[in-house]
């Protein structure tokens, strides 16, 4: 399938201190075909800027939601997904 060779356009959102470190609250990215899941996306995002690297420097402090649902590192990401990264929640 051509899918596996086409960059996947993803909408990435950042919240709280991840947003502050990355420097933007959202961005559209074209992830390379080898990015299949959340963990792969993080590894790839790290290389985009020193801010990205800082945001993802402590991976156990990063949580993720794919299309507004909490998602584990092995959750798949696909073209068109909205992927949000944020620290553990602290509401209430």
């Amino acid at each position, binding site marked *: 399938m051509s899918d596996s060779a086409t960059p996947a356009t993803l909408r990435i959102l950042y919240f709280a201190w991840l947003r502050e470190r990355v420097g933007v609250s959202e961005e559209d990215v074209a992830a390379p075909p080898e990015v299949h899941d959340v963990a792969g996306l993080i590894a790839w995002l790290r290389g985009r800027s020193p801010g990205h690297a800082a945001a993802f420097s402590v991976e156990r402090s990063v949580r993720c939601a794919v299309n507004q649902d909490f998602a584990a590192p092995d959750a798949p990401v696909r073209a068109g997904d909205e992927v949000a990264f944020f620290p553990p929640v602290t509401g*209430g």
Partner: protein
Amino acid sequence: MATIRVQTADFDIGAEIAALVAGRADIGGIGSFVGTVRNSAGGRQILAMTLEHYPAMTEQAMRRVAAEAESRFPILGCTLIHRVGRLLPGENIVLVAAVSPHRKAALDATAFLIDWLKTSAPFWKKESFADGAEAWVEARAEDEQAASGWNKAPPPAS
């Protein structure tokens, strides 16, 4: 039967409880919890707290918490209201309330709602201190334990 709201404005506890019980006489108990901004943390004076959230996800996450409470406890209804934006010490942050024919269910559901809301709804708090510093509140292991203590299955994530 759940009322879910995210808002910058304050809420009126009495009015929200009145709305929750309005028109019914099969309720025996009303439990509620209100979280408020404290004026200090770790010995440092707090000037303000700023609440950020993930708008596209928040209401759905809160609805899941309410639905989970309704499936676990014999409650007749519940209310979850969470404020966002900049709040001052003494201001209300969050209200949860649950009504039931039975006191224990109302109280247990109230505790469950706030425990799960704290660990499964996408809100983040930043504290602004008197010395000019700011810091994101860190999630506490005891909150995670309180939430997962309700079940073998922990809350959805985070």
